[in-house]
């Protein structure tokens, strides 16, 4: 089975990349663009297991490694 984790900066945390992207888009004439925020997606192949078990596994992965919970939020999506 597969899991997808979406990681984004918490609200209010400065996003230098997003800021630079937005400036650069303006420079290219995309004036309709306002704020830009950049996030991460992490796609994992998982050995088959019960959905709730998987949820829990990935949750622990996020806590321990995938997300920096001091400044980042994450959401988990299971696909199979």
């Amino acid at each position, binding site marked *: 089975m597969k899991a997808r984790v979406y990681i984004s900066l918490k609200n209010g945390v400065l996003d230098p990349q997003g800021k630079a992207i937005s400036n650069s888009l303006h420079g290219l004439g995309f004036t309709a663009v306002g704020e830009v925020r950049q996030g991460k997606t992490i796609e994992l192949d998982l050995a088959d297991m019960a959905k709730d078990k998987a949820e829990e596994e990935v949750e622990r992965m996020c806590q321990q490694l995938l997300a*920096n919970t001091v*400044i980042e939020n994450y959401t988990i999506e299971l696909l199979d």
Partner: protein
Amino acid sequence: MSEISKEIVAEHGLTEGEYGEVLTILGRAPNLTELGIFSVMWSEHCSYKSSKKWLKTLPTEAPWVICGPGENAGVIDIGDGQAAIFKMESHNHPSFIEPYQGAATGVGGIMRDVFTMGARPIANMNALRFGRPDHPKTGHLLAGVVSGIGGYGNCMGVPTVGGETNFHASYDGNILVNAMTVGLAEADNIFYSAAAGIGNPVVYVGSKTGRDGIHGATMASAQFDDDSEEKRPTVQVGDPFTEKLLLEACLELMATDAIVAIQDMGAAGLTSSSFEMADKGGVGIELNLDLVPMREEGMTPYEIMLSESQERMLMVLKPGREEEARRIFTKWELDFSVIGKVTDSGRMVLTMHGKTVADLPVAPLADAAPEYDRPWQKTRLSPVIRAEDVAAPADLGEVLLKLMGSSEIASRKWIWEQYDHMVMGDTIQRPGGDAAVVRIHGTGKALAITTDCTPRYCYADPETGGAQAVAEAWRNITATGAQPLAITDCMNFGNPERPEIMGQFVGCIDGMRDACTVLDFPVVSGNVSLYNETNGTGIHPTPAIGGVGLLSNLDRMTTLAFKEAGDIVLLIGTLTGEMGQSIYLREIEGREEGAPPRVDLAAERLHGDYLREMIGKGLITAAHDLSDGGLGVALAEMAIAGNIGADIKLETELPLHAALFAEDQGCYLATIRPENIEMVRGFALADDIPLHIIGTIGHTELKITGALTISVDSLRQVHAGWLPRLMTRPGNE
């Protein structure tokens, strides 16, 4: 405005006494914004209330000192109309909470302190302390801190050329991340922070203000307890790209004469920068907070004044120069906003949405900042441990290999290879030697830079430890041939409200004072970080010293690497064989005991001046001071660096394990061509310097008669192997 309750006062870290002081100064109750301003201005971090009394006792003057402590950084004259500007600062608590961003913003902050004064940063250093290597957090913290320091410094294009790294259980819950920046300026174009010129525009430049790290300054002075890791205070995120633009824009504007005063927004952001500028200039300032560039909707005056968003500066410009300045900052794609003006009221008046949101007298608030004479207790000293008190080991070869691969002595290559230590094209001595040597661009002279402190010595005997830290910095600079000029310090200690901790602080200062005086090595800048405690246990006292010296002729520079077979190895100084607090005792006998090696400052001075003179005459082919691990480790380090062995014979009454591994102070190893031996001896006799011929360079082994024979390759392997092995453990990447 909400009522100010006891609880709110307490949350702002003000004691009842301090709050009483607030009421008398204002003659009324403060509103929340005003209270917030008092709380950061009077926090330990900004007010130095526990340390001021003692810091004042450090020597800060010398003919070559242009500006001592009190400004953003210290300034020294390095000849030819040039000045070196430098400072070291701590970012300990933020780095423990979020190692990458904590360390990165620490580096950003110290660089701003230096370029605020008109200097282009030319070198960064970092002094790091982590918990014991096998503590579950150590690897993760080390990896994060190192990539954070690299991430910021590398992007700025400023080489990180050296530092120091210790591991000890006392830092398990309180790592230390001290960053130092050295900059280069024209001696007659240095910028200060005193606001002046009634009516002059006050200008905000750099990044927008968000809700970053609000109360970082008070947090940095608050003790940790178990749940503060859960509290997760708003962490600041560094933006090195914006800082690079800010650097170039500031230097471009500084090339004109439009600036009256300039001050970076560090801890306590707009509050401390505006108050400092007003207080130093003896003027008032009026700010319209509506004009502050903001990143987020609906920010309150409280948040705007206390935000610690990075990459921001406050300036006072000459009247009519706004447009010229604006053009420069716009070219560099940075915010530029005139947010107020200098007044003669002596008050800080803040308005927002047409209402006055704070109105505070500047001088009283700054000068009446509390200053404590905290009770302190002298540290109980441990007995000297003599050679006879330590049983001889079975195999001295195994001992040397073990020490070379131990946490204190093993190579830090894994760290500095993640730092761009060559950019700017002037790094003449890279990390791995005694002091880093950075050429003054386009000249034949250079600065020698080092950071040093041996916390286990400071813990056992603060006074000796304080003196030793200064002496070792002086020695590391001397070993390159440079003339030591001045130091910056970063005083990392536990909770000053505990007399034994305050005693450590006082002791270290006493020792530093003596060493600075005898060695003509004044303190020109510094920083204090207290409350480095978790659950009531403090860190080892750690007065990190950053030293800077001048090498006026690069052709007269030495490195620690053995050069040529046939060179003769000299020992300058006297071996006492005292083993207390040595790495040997810790690694081989598992004892962290005894008195640290004694520091004889007169001898220190004599031996160092002699070595520097010999280097200056071009007589020395390699030089290295003795420090952690003593003579044995120093020899191994020189052999590894030069990839050539040596044949050593020690004539001494001391048992060999003591002669080789006691950490005697004021000692150097040096090599010379055989034909120069008489000359070098002659000078030594004249100044009566203890000088011993102990061997010859050659072959592929380090051979010490009666002790050991080990191939240089196997020494290198253990020395290089330890840190990479630690960092590839699961969870440490």
